């Protein structure tokens, strides 16, 4: 089976660049140059330096004793929550801002759901002295207040998206419109493995450092680079893409993506795209999409702003269709409980997105010597209010 992207920008039946003509020059410029730029020695040096000295990579791979004992498996936590700004998102924004510089762009725009990508973008813009505008759904601005203020402190303008459900999908629409209106001086830093080709591939490559490190760290700690399982939550799918990237051709490594079931799969308030979605086109790519029979995109729901998206990246749609990645899901309650569980067993308060990945431990069966890696995509600081409101701890 071939899991990689083809020269037309497709992963099997999914991907492509479904964009209005107004964006064609931007996307074409990116497409024709991203691999060359990313391959330059100078680019790689700068990228790797910043990941090490600014982001704090490599992030630890931590053997979680108490969790391992509870679930009778060897559970490791990949600590992306320890990245500067508190989530994996910055791996991508560092890469894209270096690329934007080389494309001669002066301004940056981004969309954000949980605010993690927005903060990561605002951070690298401050670092590089570039102007930054972040679009964020008005609802998300309310439920992720601290991140809104962090962006503002960093000098970014946060613009509320007031269409639709006022969440991530709507923020993405607004960012794309901004780009259509400002095509020449602006680069759009998309925050996940979504959007028109080459974004899904480019973002996955920037995030692939996660699985590269997991391999090295497991070799050291277990004497074998291959885990039995890698588990990651999937909103658009960037932390999962990074965690799966260097294992995807090793078929004996089981890859588990975890989607947000919201109030339950059949509740009408869910974001579990692989269960509820059908092939469709949104935000520039063909992928699995939650939609009505008439092709209107359905407003998703999850307690976690970062997973509250009606699609998944086209690579994940392909990995789902081919059966290479198994998709599970967790409800709001299951995730919140798992967040508390991780806090109490390992002293790590995870982002609610991440808590969804932790929640499926209960739904899986392991052999005692199975090596399980959970990608801890982010920390829970931004979610304290949600934890407090949920209250059951």
């Amino acid at each position, binding site marked *: 089976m071939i899991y990689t992207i083809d020269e*037309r920008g497709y992963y099997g039946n999914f991907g*492509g*660049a*479904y*964009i*209005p*003509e*107004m964006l*064609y*020059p931007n996307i074409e410029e990116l497409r024709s140059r991203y691999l060359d730029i990313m391959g330059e020695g100078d680019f790689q040096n700068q990228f790797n330096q910043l990941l090490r000295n600014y982001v704090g990579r490599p992030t630890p791979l931590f053997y979680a004793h108490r969790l391992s004992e509870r679930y009778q498996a060897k559970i490791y936590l990949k600590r992306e929550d320890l990245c500067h700004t508190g989530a994996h998102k910055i791996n991508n924004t560092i890469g894209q801002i270096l690329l934007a510089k080389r494309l001669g762009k002066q301004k940056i725009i981004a969309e954000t759901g949980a605010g993690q990508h927005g903060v990561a973008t605002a951070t690298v813009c401050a670092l590089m002295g570039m102007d930054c505008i972040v679009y964020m759904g008005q609802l998300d601005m309310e439920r992720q207040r601290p991140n809104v203020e962090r962006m503002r402190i960093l000098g970014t303008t946060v613009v509320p998206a007031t*269409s*639709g459900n006022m969440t991530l*999908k709507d923020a993405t*629409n607004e960012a*794309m*419109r901004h780009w*259509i*209106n*400002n*095509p*020449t001086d602006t680069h759009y830093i998309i925050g996940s493995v979504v959007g028109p080709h080459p974004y899904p591939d480019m973002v996955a490559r920037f995030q692939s450092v996660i699985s590269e490190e997991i391999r090295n760290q497991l070799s050291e700690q277990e004497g074998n680079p291959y885990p039995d399982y890698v588990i990651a939550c999937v909103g658009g799918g960037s932390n999962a893409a990074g965690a799966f990237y260097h294992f995807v051709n090793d078929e004996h490594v089981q890859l588990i993506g975890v989607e947000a079931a919201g109030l339950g799969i059949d509740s009408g308030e869910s974001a579990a795209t692989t269960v509820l979605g*059908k*092939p*469709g*086109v*949104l*935000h*520039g790519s063909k992928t699995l*999409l939650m*939609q009505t*029979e*008439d*092709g*209107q*995109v359905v407003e998703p729901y999850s307690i976690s702003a970062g997973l509250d998206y009606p699609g998944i990246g086209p690579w994940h749609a392909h990995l789902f269709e081919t059966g290479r990645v198994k998709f599970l899901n967790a409800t709001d309650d299951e995730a919140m409980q798992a967040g508390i569980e991780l806090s109490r067993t390992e002293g790590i308060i995870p982002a609610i997105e991440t808590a969804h990945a932790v929640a499926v431990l209960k739904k899986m069966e392991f052999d005692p010597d199975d090596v399980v890696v959970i990608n801890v995509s982010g920390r829970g600081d931004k979610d304290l209010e949600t934890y407090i409101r949920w209250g059951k701890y």
Partner: protein
Amino acid sequence: METINVMNRIDKLFQQKKENILSVFFTAGFPTLHDTVEIAKQLQSAGVDMIEIGIPFSDPIADGPVIQQSSKQAIDNGMTVTLLLEQVKEIRKTVSVPIILMGYLNPVMQYGMDRFFSDAVAAGVDGLILPDMPFEEFESHYKQEMDRLDLRNIFLISPTTSDDRIERIDQASRGFIYAVSSSSTTGSKNEFDENQIRYFKRLKDKQLKNPFLIGFGISNKETFSAACQNGAGAIVGSAFIKVLSASKSIPNDILTFIKTLNSGIK
């Protein structure tokens, strides 16, 4: 099928009229679900040369606030592709100007591309504008079927489209080319700036095989006549939707609006 033998209405229009063509865009199912038919009839009575009907979509990334809002309202009203095709059939009982359907790919894909093409032609549609359908995708998957049905696919170009690409699009186009007036989403402006005028002139000087209509930002007689001095005519969308939104008497307001637009041209 008889439709195949009759000349496509878009081709016929551009054969008969070389300048000052006025095409008007509105969203299907807006302001109320069944206004589509009446608006189309009134537009023809008011003398417009072509009608573009928007298929509403939940996530119209190429549209500004006015068309976004109309799309949202149309979806809330219950507008669907199936209903639109029925409305077009109804429109065709009295309306003879070319009809183009404009919409994002996803609702059309869910209906089924080939099924949509043939049902649209059967309903009396002459062309499609699918702004997020990639040119390459059209050429490799849909061109053949659309040509067979004599259904035109209209491509957009914008000020940032390269000369090479404009030529490729011109080669692949039949009917006309939709020249987006500025690097922007849809929405009305009151005048064109120098860069825009220079871009229109550049297009005119290219002597493309297809005529082009200028769209996005045509809102009044000044912008309409400026567009007509360079292209074969223009497309008015947001400004017309604003009229519909505010209208207490749609027939009167359509007549007045179209008259005013046309009053700038000799």
